[in-house]
């Protein structure tokens, strides 16, 4: 079995600051991490590897520094890593990104057929959740998004059964391989990489593909040129501003603070008193 896991290197959005005057992202000092949702997908793929002796290839598109993300994936146990990097990929929206990644996966298939493609449910920088479905459509893979459990995998019948988070419940879906799975967070815990794993990953040869190596057939469909959407304006949000009225009490005792807060709350917002009363009764 051959599994491709798509990952992305992202700035840790929890640490991003916006320059107050220029409204630009201040990247300095913001660490680049592997998109946390992609690690959940990688772990799920590695579990299948442990069970079925699968070959796991990790694939990413990004600047040369994205190598770090691939090395990390290798240290956890991926067998092979491919970096798509080319100035021509720059500025891609999700449609152009899925075109490039799908082309690369077609190239990967030439060496070894691919049974499953894994991706995180979304990235923490773009948050679109669109690239996974895009790849599935382009490669004609069965598409399983927001998967919270792989129930069964039958390699002989080439069938997979998964639980998928839907609105108001969980769908149990059975489909044929090859399939693309985007994985919901919280369904597994990433394994640890040992020191020898990390050394091995550091020495592991990477495949670095430019647009030709990635088998891009139509260069007008990648990068900014291949992106139907463009950003016309970037601006800072005007957030809700309301300086909190800080509850002050003479004693600083939590009990007094709580009582004072309730009194203020119910005086100013009598509808909340009614709401809470209704729910409790």
């Amino acid at each position: 079995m051959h599994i491709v896991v798509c990952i992305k290197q992202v700035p840790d959005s929890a640490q991003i600051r916006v320059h107050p005057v220029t409204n630009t992202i201040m990247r300095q000092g913001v660490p680049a991490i592997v998109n946390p949702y992609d690690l959940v997908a990688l772990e799920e793929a590695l579990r299948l590897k442990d069970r079925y002796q699968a070959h796991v290839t990790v694939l990413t598109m990004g600047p040369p520094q994205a190598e770090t993300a691939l090395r990390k994936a290798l240290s956890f146990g991926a067998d092979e890593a491919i970096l798509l990097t080319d100035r021509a990929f720059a500025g891609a929206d999700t449609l152009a990104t899925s075109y490039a990644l799908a082309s690369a996966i077609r190239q990967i298939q030439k060496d070894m057929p691919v049974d499953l493609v894994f991706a995180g449910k979304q990235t923490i920088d773009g948050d679109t959740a669109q690239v996974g479905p895009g790849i599935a459509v382009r490669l004609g893979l069965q598409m399983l998004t927001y998967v919270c459990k792989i129930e069964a995998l039958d390699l002989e019948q080439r069938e997979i059964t998964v639980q998928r988070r839907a609105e108001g419940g969980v769908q149990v879906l059975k489909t044929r391989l090859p399939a693309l799975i985007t994985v919901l967070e919280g369904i597994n815990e990433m394994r640890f990489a040992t020191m020898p794993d990390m050394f091995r990953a550091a020495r592991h040869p990477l495949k670095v593909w430019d647009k030709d190596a990635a088998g891009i057939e139509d260069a007008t469909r990648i990068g900014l040129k291949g992106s139907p959407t463009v950003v016309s304006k970037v601006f800072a949000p005007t957030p809700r501003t309301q300086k909190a009225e800080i509850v002050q009490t003479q004693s600083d005792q939590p009990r007094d603070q709580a009582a004072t807060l309730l009194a203020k709350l119910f005086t100013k917002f009598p509808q909340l008193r009614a709401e809470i009363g209704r729910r409790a009764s």
Partner: protein
Amino acid sequence: MNDTTASTPPAKKPAGRRKFELDERLKAYKGVWVFIEHERGAAHPVSWELLGEGRKLADKLGVELGAVVPGAPGEDTQKFCAEAFQYGADLCYLIEDPALAEYRNQSYTRALTDLVNKYQPEILLLGATTLGRDLAGSVATTLQTGLTADCTELNIDMENRSLAATRPTFGGSLLCTIVTLNYRPQMATVRPRVMAMPARDETRTGRIVEHPLALVETDIVTKVLEFIPDERRDQANLPFADIIVAGGRGMKRPENFQLIWDLAKVLGAEVGATRPVVQAGWVGADRQVGQSGKTVRPKLYIAVGISGAVQHRVGMEGSDVVIAINQDPNAPIFDFATYGIVGNAMQIVPALTEAFRQHLATAKLAS
């Protein structure tokens, strides 16, 4: 969203350099559509919220507002059409087929792309639910057009009649407005509770356009073996909760989170959390509030040990009243809360739980 982080440089250059004039064949695309999402007999409220927003866009453009209602024959599709008219649709595209009985990507993608190719809308809106995002991604790729996810504002750029879709980026630190150039339809998804629910006009009606679709069940590879409803799973429904008690990293330890649950129980509230807390596994991912979680607009939001990072704020700033409890008097949460208590959450939350409990007991006695 333009993937400004994948590589250099951010796509911030003016859109004007690229072709804004529509091809002749794309000028035929007219009308605003909303996909009506329904499962097991109930329409998702986000569909009506989108009709409210779609109505404004259609009026600006001077075009009709269409609702797309797919489903199996005999399902409540007629009822959903009638409701769609009441929430502002001028016409409904009704696609009935046994293969549409339960949501599956393949059959729904086929239905929606077929309909788009035949009737050619200029704008297509879907809810950013697990269904809507699954469907929108594959439909946009199949149609080879642009899709903007999780928009918080939709508008028409009257200069070229294009959809200007605004969405948060970089975890909500910035907003960007995205336009789709020489491609149609222009697609966008919007999360539940981001747009206001429009008023319902019971007298409003419209016309139904039926679109037959000869799907063959055996052509659809994926089968639904079972649906396990959330009542059997204790899944949270945060977007529609009226009271939420949420905890952040300031709760320090997973066992302290019990204090949040206790307060929520007394108030009949849902429990919410920040991303770090969810990532640490203290609570399930269905309880995450924020840019990569859920958008909520409760009447009361109690934020405990939450600093108020922008990525959390964007998910909860639509709350009517916010109470913040934090040890750090300079925490950003106090800049957008109604009331604040500075202090140790581990002591204040139990006191608050007790105060609410007493209040309720007294109120009960009095009644």
